[in-house]
């Protein structure tokens, strides 16, 4: 029974340690990901995804990257990579840190090989000295009158493949952390307002932090040539009524506080107004193109800004007033800076100036740091694999009747041999020159 159990475990281990499985899974991930680009996805194009036939929606084609199938593929790929990495760890460790000189000539790499004749000691000294000067770490052993050695250069290169494979697992862990923890939301406050973080319009997760955001100003700046410079928001973090941080953010320059990052995502023009209602002054900020509305307390009048002229010298607003659920405005017109108008005899309205609305994407993603770690590991692994190739040179010296003998020397560089022959030839040439120099 125990043997049978061990057999099953071994079979599962063998299955997951197969490189073929890894390649098949990679192919399937590519295939499924490719299919996802043909169908509109709910996260990118919700309207387009809804327009797709219900059958495809039910089958998950419009949310393919969040589907069980895709997650299963990624999970299997991770298991495959972990098992492969565990299996290869010991071998790589031995190939890097526990190299043993060859016992006989058959153990010397034979694809790239040379034979050198000479006296035992001078040859040994020449080889060792030259290899060390070329950055090799040399280990040698004496067997009676014979000697053998093994030398390794750029040994971290051996770890490149393992590191890059592990990095994929780290990336997936980062993505899982980002998906299961943290939150994502959007807010569009106007300049001069303070909004609690909890008022965020959330699309994912819940907000645990308890602080407010004050918007000092929101600007749409232009360059002298008329091109847009950037959107800027001068904002502050208010905690327990105290301003703890103030910073101007813009697109590509976010602000992070307590793990929450504020990204400048959009901008809308607004108008700053004062409503005089029964001697009560109410400040109001309206967003361009009817982005929001104002309902005067105790009335059924709804005021919107149909269009705003954002020129700071001559701000103006085209306004519309609706009553109840009426479709047509009961009053409309233009109001200029400093001008006061009467709205249906209910209240007076004064335009005080412009005020920008800033669109802020707000996000807490504890997985981001893990993602960057994964990216760094991936790059490190690839650089070690492709630009820091490990070279191993080994040889066996067989003595003849006197102190003379023959050194069989060979080189290998993992599975890649391109360029190694030239490097090896240079080494052999160096050894020969050194010996000639010594003579």
């Amino acid at each position, binding site marked *: 029974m125990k043997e049978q159990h061990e057999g099953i475990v071994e079979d599962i281990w063998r299955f997951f340690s197969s490189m073929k499985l890894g390649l098949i899974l990679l192919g399937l991930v590519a295939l499924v*990901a490719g299919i996802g680009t043909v169908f509109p996805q709910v996260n990118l194009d919700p309207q*387009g995804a809804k327009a797709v036939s219900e059958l495809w929606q039910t089958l998950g084609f419009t949310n393919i990257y969040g589907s069980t199938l895709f997650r299963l593929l990624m999970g299997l790929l991770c298991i495959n990579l972990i098992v492969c990495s565990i299996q290869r760890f010991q071998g790589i460790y031995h190939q890097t840190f526990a190299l043993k000189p060859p016992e006989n000539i058959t153990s010397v790499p034979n694809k790239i090989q040379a034979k050198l004749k000479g006296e035992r000691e001078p040859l040994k000294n020449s080889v060792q000295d030259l290899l060390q000067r070329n950055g090799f770490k040399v280990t040698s052993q004496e067997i009676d009158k014979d000697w053998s050695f093994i030398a390794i250069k750029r040994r971290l290169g051996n770890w490149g493949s393992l590191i890059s494979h592990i990095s994929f697992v780290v990336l997936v862990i980062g993505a899982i952390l980002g998906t299961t923890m943290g939150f994502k939301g959007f807010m569009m406050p106007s300049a001069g307002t303070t909004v609690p973080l909890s008022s965020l319009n959330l699309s994912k997760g819940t907000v645990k932090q308890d602080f407010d955001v004050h918007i000092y100003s929101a600007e749409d700046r232009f360059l002298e040539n008329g091109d847009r410079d950037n959107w800027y928001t001068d904002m502050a973090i208010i905690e327990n009524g105290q301003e703890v941080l103030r910073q101007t953010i813009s697109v590509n320059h976010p602000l992070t506080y307590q793990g929450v990052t504020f990204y400048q995502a959009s901008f809308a023009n607004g108008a700053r107004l004062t409503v005089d209602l029964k001697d009560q002054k109410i400040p109001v900020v309206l967003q361009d193109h009817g982005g929001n509305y104002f309902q005067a307390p105790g009335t059924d009048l709804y005021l919107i800004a149909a269009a705003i002229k954002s020129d700071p010298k001559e701000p103006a607003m085209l306004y519309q007033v609706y009553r109840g659920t009426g479709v047509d405005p009961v009053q409309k017109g233009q109001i200029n800076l400093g001008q006061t108008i009467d709205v249906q005899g209910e209240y007076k309205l004064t335009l005080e100036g412009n005020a920008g609305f800033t669109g802020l994407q707000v996000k807490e993603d504890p997985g981001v740091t893990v993602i*960057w770690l994964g990216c760094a590991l991936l790059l490190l692994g690839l650089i070690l694999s*492709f630009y820091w190739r490990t070279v191993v040179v080994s040889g066996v010296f067989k003595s003849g009747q006197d102190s003379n003998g023959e050194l069989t020397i060979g080189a290998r560089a993992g599975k890649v041999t391109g360029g190694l022959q030239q490097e090896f030839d240079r080494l052999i040439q160096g050894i020969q020159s050194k010996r000639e120099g010594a003579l």
Partner: protein
Amino acid sequence: MNQGLQNLETSSFYIMLMAYTLSMLFYWAWIGTKKDLMGRFATYLTIVGLVANTAAIILRMIIAGRPPLSNAYEFLLTFVWGITSVYLFVEFRYKLKALGAFVMPISFMILMFIIMSMGAEERIAQSIPPALKSKWITFHVVTAMFSYGAFAISFGLGIMYLLKLSRETNGKTAKSQAQGIISRFPDLETIDELSYKVIGFAFPLLTLCIITGAIWANYAWGTYWSWDPKETWSLITWIIYAAYLHARLMYGWKGKRAAWMTIFGFAAVLFTFFGVNYFLPGLHSYAVSQNILIV
């Protein structure tokens, strides 16, 4: 002054176009006639084209006041620069002039695409939206330029390999081979090994390109990966080359199968670049509405 620079940039573009077109023809003439003079002309013209290409890029930088990497025209200009510069390095380093006959047509076709599909208003320096004002986009596009350029070289090598292989397997005599165009090609093993080396150079760069794109997206939109078709196809391209490397190193996939994979991989590169924008436009509105190519 700006008008003068714009005229100079336009002149550089047409000099580049002429030089690359002629160099392609001279490379073809060289492998057909075996006259060294043809080969020398081909190389000189490629160098002239690259100088003009560099001038066009630098002038665009001066005119726009930013790295010239923000619209389709500018990226194609740098893509061609990447292909040609990597090609010239390979030609000089490995004495592989015959490769020019397969690589220069790629540059030529990209330039023809610019001429035929982009109006003058699409080629002039335009203002860019705030999201594109990031140093990360420069890293992102520069790494794309070199990796895509190198993949184009591996594609050319793959075609050379398959042509030489088909000639050899068709049982041509050694004599007729020596007289034919294919005789200008290095031996199969050299082509195969060089193709691997080029992909080994390009693959980490493609990885860096994807990573810098993710960093940029995270700064700009707070999302490092959104499964946008452009991102997804760059990942698919990455997977194809990763599969090539694994199959080669672990299963000894060399020769014909490896050559086909280089062709397949470059097809994915082209689809990532052109296909996503032109066949899946509805899903990549950013690229279509702004005529911006995010690589």
